[in-house]
């Protein structure tokens, strides 16, 4: 019915003023595209960190020495602020919730073998370690429980070590010297990549913790004890239980604070995300500014066309357009422009994100919510500033609108 005529009028007006339409849409396009690219980069970074945390293993609980509160280091009786193998053995013996557990003894060592030598952190772990970290071998095998109990001198090499010492090929079956002690290579680990902090996880040699303790002792510390449960739901119970066992093992009185820290996977993720939070905020701020600039652009063009439009509105009203007709026309114009501009902006945003990913190697993630947000804001600005002058003019007497300079 009559609305149909108004749609016709609006479309005609858009087509008639190609330059104004283009400039208005440009503001929306830039605003939408900028926000999408910026936030896509931020979300991409988050996702990458999440993936790295996931690589640590599933249903993981990590014990680290020292209280979690940095200012509150507790030096009470019996407190050592260290983890010991006794802690590991107590946990292994008493915990009911943990399905797997492994200490991590780190012994920095000089490795000789293959085509040269290398400095590496030898990690003494239990046979559970591979399960906890979901870390399989790409060739050979992990050491087994017999070897662990017998303190056999067997080693599983990380890919970086293999790359450096055995560039020619599979080293399984060969021998390497760790601090002058010969170890047999029984397996090679799958490549795991970098940690959230950028450390190379493949620059490592795994050996039974029993062997490391006896053969490579000396400068040795236990930075972590790793445990995992069968299901995510068990984690809180396991954490509580571990806490009790460790407090007991450390001989802490009830008023003493923990001298160790327990963290599950999501807490680890939070810690790691903390750093990217800043970046995400920064990107969001830039995106917000882009949106604002885009919005101001839209606003300017809309306001500049007000003079012309006010006269136009005067003419339309003089020949019988009601205020409502004028407003509907302008609303349709604004919506159509915002929608087309928004769609082009989304396309440009996807293109820009893809290009950035290709050029910089950063991961980008575009979620539907992001698209909706960017579209929503720009459309709101476009519609508001397109509609606002019309509203103002439609409230005038026709003759006033006609006289408008």
């Amino acid at each position, binding site marked *: 019915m*009559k609305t149909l005529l108004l749609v016709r009028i609006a479309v005609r007006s858009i087509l*008639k003023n190609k330059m104004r339409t283009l400039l208005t849409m440009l503001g929306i396009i830039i605003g939408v595209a900028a926000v999408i690219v910026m936030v896509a980069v931020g979300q991409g970074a988050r996702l990458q960190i999440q993936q790295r945390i996931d690589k640590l293993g599933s249903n993981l609980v990590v014990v680290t020495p020292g209280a979690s509160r940095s200012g509150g280091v507790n030096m009470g009786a019996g407190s050592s602020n260290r983890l010991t193998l006794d802690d590991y053995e107590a946990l292994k013996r008493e915990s009911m919730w943990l399905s797997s557990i492994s200490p991590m003894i780190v012994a920095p060592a000089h490795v000789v073998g293959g085509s040269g030598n290398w400095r590496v952190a030898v990690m003494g772990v239990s046979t559970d370690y591979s399960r906890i970290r979901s870390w399989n071998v790409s060739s050979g095998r992990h050491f087994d429980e017999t070897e662990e109990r017998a303190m056999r001198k067997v080693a599983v090499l990380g890919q970086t070590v293999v790359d450096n010492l055995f560039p020619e090929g599979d080293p399984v079956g060969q021998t390497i010297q760790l601090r002058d002690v010969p170890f047999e290579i029984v397996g090679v680990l799958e490549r795991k990549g970098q940690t959230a902090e950028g450390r190379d996880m493949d620059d490592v040699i795994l050996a039974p913790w029993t062997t490391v303790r006896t053969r490579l002792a000396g400068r040795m510390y236990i930075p972590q004890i790793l445990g995992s449960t069968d299901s995510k739901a068990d984690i809180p119970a396991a954490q509580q239980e571990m806490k009790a066992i460790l407090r007991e093992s450390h001989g802490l009185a009830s008023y003493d604070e923990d001298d160790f820290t327990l963290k599950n996977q999501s807490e680890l993720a939070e810690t790691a995300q903390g750093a990217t939070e800043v970046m995400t905020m920064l990107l969001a701020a830039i995106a917000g500014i882009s949106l604002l600039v885009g919005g101001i652009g839209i606003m300017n063009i809309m306001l500049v066309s007000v003079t012309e439009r006010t006269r136009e509105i005067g*003419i339309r*009203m*003089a020949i*019988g*357009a009601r205020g409502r007709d004028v407003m509907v026309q302008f609303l349709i114009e604004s919506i159509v422009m915002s929608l087309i501009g928004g769609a082009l902006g989304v396309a440009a945003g996807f293109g820009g994100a893809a290009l950035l990913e290709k050029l910089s190697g950063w991961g980008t993630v575009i979620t539907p919510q992001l698209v909706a947000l960017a579209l929503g804001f720009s459309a709101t600005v476009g519609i508001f500033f397109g509609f606002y002058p019309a509203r103002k003019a439609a409230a005038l007497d026709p*003759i006033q609108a006609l006289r408008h300079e």
Partner: protein
Amino acid sequence: MAHEAVIRIEGLTRTYTTGSTAVQALRGVDLQVMRGEMLAIMGASGSGKSTLMNLLGCLDSPTSGNYWLDGVRVDGLGRNQLAEIRNTRIGFVFQGFNLLSRTSALDNVELPLLYSHRGLKVDRRQVALEALRSVGLADRVDHEPSELSGGQQQRVAIARALVMQPAILLADEPTGNLDSRTSLEVMALFQDLNAKGVTILLVTHEHDIAECATRVVELRDGHILRDEPVTPRRDAARQLALLPEIGA
């Protein structure tokens, strides 16, 4: 006879206030226009002719006074009702044309139809074309105002005022930009419309144009100075026929 007054105004005033100064453009005007009349409004520049026309055309509201259109009070009507009156009952030709720029003559003339229910029922382009033809502009339908002469723009404006076939035609200096021949053509058109029953009010400075009307009203400083019938009335069509053909 009072029933036949298409337009009746009493004590109409209009005061423009700009900042601290107030200009009294109309200072109490009484006027009745009967159906079928053709009224010429004269007066010096600034005497309030356009102000009066705008009020009669429901484009502006009076500061005080009453206005009856077809016996119905229109001062105090809502904005939408006034818009409807402007759309369907009054055709208005502005002193400055007021055509939409960058819009073809045909689209300009079609415009009133787009805001009326009638526009849904008729072939709008055909109706608009008909109106343009009646003012002799059938060969300029696709031209935009900037591509038309002043006289041609004037005629587009007239066609737009006529396209809704209003009972009242208000024209503010419709021949102000035209040479004498084109002026006569416009007046012949008006007289023809008037003969078909359209009530016409037009503003003019020229006496021979005013003589084409049936009655002349002269304004001075917002008052009606003179209001008298025209005798004898000039027949624009006959005068036109007496003029030598252009290019002949």
